[in-house]
C-alpha cells in the first residue's frame, strides 16, 4: 500500500524485479500493481540479479527512483557487487556529485522450510557496508511508514521484510510519529532490556508477556532500522534496567547481535549488572527439516528461558 501510494504521488518511482508484474510477486506483495501502473512502471525482469540491481543503480543515478525487488535476500550474493561496491559507494567515490535514490526490497528469514538458500538473514552484510540504509520492519505500521520514508531518501535503502510477517494482521497507524532511524519502545519494563527487530519482535513480546507471570518486567525495543541505528534509545534503556538481552535471527558470529552488544558495552558499561547476552541464530546453514529449522533460530521458549538466566531466576 505504501508503495502504491508513493507511486501515485511520484511518477519517477518504478518497480522492477522477477515476477513482480503479471505474477504479482512470489508472496503476492505486488499483486494488482501492473494493472494500475502499467508495464512501463512495473517491470518484470529476467532472472539476472546483478543486471537488474545494476540497472536500478544506473536509473537512480539518472533521474528515476527505482524499487528493485529480489525475490529472496539469499539471491543478493549475485548482486552484491552492485549493492556494496556500486550503490553504496557512488555518492562517496564521486565526491557527493551523484545520488543513488533506490530501494532494494527483499524478504528473508526462516519459517517455510526454504532450506539453506531461501531462509537466511543477511542483514549484517548490509549493516557492514557504509553508504546503505537498512530498514527491517516488524509491524504493519512500520512496513508502511518505513517504506514511505525510504522512498523519499536520496541514498540507497535496503528494505528487508520477513517472509513470516506477510500474513501478520495488525492495525495501520498512518500517522505514526516515530522518525526514520528511531527505535520503538514497544513495552516498558524495569528489569531488563530486550533489543530486537523484524520477526523476533513478536517472539520477544510474547516471551515478555510470559515473563510477567514470574514478576519480570522486560522493556522491549524494536530497532525498526539497523542503519541508522538508534544507539541512544538502546543505551538509555539499558542504563535504566542494567541488563540487556539482544535477540536476532541472523547467525551469532560477527552478526548484528555482536555490533549491538558492543554498542551497549561502549555506551552503558558502568550500568551493566550482567554481561550483555546474545540470543541469535545458530552458526549453521538453515536446514530444511521443520524441526531442525525451528531450532536454528531463537524461539519464544528460549527467549523466555534466557531472560530467566539473565535475571538469575
Amino acid at each position, binding site marked *: 500500500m505504501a508503495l502504491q501510494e508513493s507511486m501515485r504521488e511520484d511518477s*519517477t518511482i*518504478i518497480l522492477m524485479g522477477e515476477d513482480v508484474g503479471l505474477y504479482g510477486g512470489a508472496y503476492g506483495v505486488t499483486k494488482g500493481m501492473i494493472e494500475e501502473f502499467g508495464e*512501463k512502471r512495473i*517491470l518484470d*525482469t*529476467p532472472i*539476472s540479479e*546483478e*543486471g*537488474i*540491481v*545494476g*540497472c*536500478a*543503480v*544506473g*536509473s*537512480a*543515478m*539518472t*533521474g*528515476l527512483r*527505482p524499487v528493485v525487488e529480489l525475490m529472496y535476500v539469499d539471491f543478493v550474493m549475485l548482486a552484491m*557487487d*552492485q549493492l556494496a*561496491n*556500486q550503490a553504496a559507494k*557512488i*555518492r*562517496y*567515490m*564521486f*565526491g*557527493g*556529485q*551523484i*545520488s543513488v535514490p533506490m530501494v532494494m526490497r527483499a524478504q528473508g528469514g526462516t519459517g517455510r522450510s526454504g532450506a539453506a538458500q531461501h531462509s537466511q538473514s543477511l542483514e549484517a552484510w548490509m549493516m557492514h557496508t*557504509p*553508504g546503505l*540504509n537498512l530498514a527491517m520492519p516488524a509491524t504493519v505500521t512500520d512496513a508502511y511508514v518505513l517504506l514511505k520514508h525510504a522512498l523519499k*531518501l*536520496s*541514498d540507497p535503502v535496503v528494505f528487508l521484510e520477513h517472509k513470516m510477517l506477510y500474513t501478520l494482521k495488525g492495525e495501520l497507524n498512518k500517522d505514526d510519529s516515530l522518525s526514520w*532511524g528511531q527505535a520503538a519502545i514497544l513495552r516498558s519494563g524495569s528489569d531488563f532490556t530486550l533489543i530486537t527487530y523484524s520477526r523476533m519482535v513478536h517472539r520477544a513480546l510474547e516471551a515478555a508477556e510470559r515473563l510477567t507471570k514470574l514478576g519480570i518486567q522486560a522493556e522491549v525495543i524494536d530497532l525498526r532500522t539497523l542503519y*541508522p541505528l538508534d544507539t541512544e534509545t538502546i543505551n538509555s534503556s539499558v542504563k535504566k534496567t542494567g541488563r540487556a538481552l539482544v535477540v536476532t535471527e541472523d547467525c551469532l558470529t560477527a552478526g548484528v547481535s555482536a555490533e549491538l552488544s558492543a554498542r551497549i*558495552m*561502549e*555506551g*552503558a*558499561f*558502568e550500568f551493566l549488572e550482567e554481561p550483555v547476552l546474545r540470543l541469535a541464530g545458530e552458526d549453521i546453514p538453515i536446514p530444511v527439516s521443520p524441526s531442525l529449522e525451528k531450532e536454528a533460530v531463537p524461539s519464544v521458549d528460549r527467549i523466555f528461558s534466557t531472560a530467566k538466566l539473565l535475571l538469575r531466576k
Partner: protein
Amino acid sequence: MDTETQILIRLFRQMLRVRTFEERVGELFLKGGTAGSMLHLSIGEESAAVGVGEAMHSGDGFTTHHRGHGIFLARGADPKKMMAEIGGKEDGYCRGKGGSMHIADNDLGHLGANAIVGGGISHVVGAGLSYQYLGKDQAAVAFFGDGAMQQGGLYESMNLAALWKLPVMFVCINNEYGMGTRLDRASASLEFAKRAETFGVNGLEIDGLDVTQVYHKAQKLMERVRNGSPAFLKVNCYRFHGHARKDKSHYREDSEEQKGREKDSILHLENQLIEGSLVTTENLEQIKLEIDNEMDEAMEYALNSTEPESIQRFQDVYAPGSPEPLPVDERIRQALNP
C-alpha cells in the same frame, strides 16, 4: 578548410591530448604527485576513446573502466580537474575521494569510472531506461576493456538492453590484455560481435588504427541506438605500456610489443594529414605545442592543489543532512567517559 579536414584535425588534436595527458600522468607519478600507483594509461587506445567520444552527443551518459582517462577527456573533461583528482586533491572532480579509477562528472554525463571489471556496464542500461522512461533524446554508452567480455554481468546487461529496446551502446576497447593475460588465453572464442548479435544487439568489430573509421562507424551505430536498437562495438587496439605504472610487461616479448606499438592511430592520422597536404608541419607543431602547454599546466595545477581536509573523510557517505558516521576516536571517548 573543408568540413572533413576540420574533423580530421579535431580527431588528431583530441587523440594527441589524450596521449599527452597520459604521458603527464606518468610524469606526475614519478614526481610523487599521484595518489598511489594504480594508474592505468590508455596510450595506444586513443582512437577508441576519441572516435566514439566524438560520435556522442552532449547530454549522453557514459560509464568507463579503470583505463578511462582518454574517454573522459574526449567527452570534454578539464585536464586540470582530472589531474588533481588523480593526485587525490581537493580540486579534483571528486574532491580527492575517487581518483583515477573512480572519476566522474554528472554535468558531462560521466556516470563514473569503475574499478570492478564490468562494474559500470549495467549502469548505462539503467541510464538508458531513465532516458526512455522520461522521454529524453539521450543515449548511454558503456566503455570497457576486453577483460569485461568474460564477465557475466555484461551479458545480463545486453539482454536487458535488447529486451527493453534501450538507447544503449556497449563499447569494448580491446587492448589484447587483461592485466598480464593475453586475450587468447582468456577466451576460447574471439568473435565478440557475434556474441552481441545472439542477444539481439547490433554487433560490429573494427580496427582501431584508423580513428576516422571508428568515428564514422560509431556515428552510424549511435543513430540506431537512439532509436532504441542497442549496439556493441569492438575496437581493436594494443596497450602500449604495462597494466599499471609498476608493471614492466615481463609476460610479453619485446618483439610483440614493438609490433603492437606500430598500431599507432595518432601517427597514422598524422601521416595521412601530411601526405594529403591537409596541414603543414608547422600547423602540427603548433598543435603539439598548445597541447604540451595545456597538459603541463594541468600537471602543475595538480601538484599545487591542496589536500582534502581530514574531516572530509566522513562527508558524502550519505546525503547532506543525514547523520555522518561516528569517528572511531569518538566511540572510544564515549566508552571511557560516559
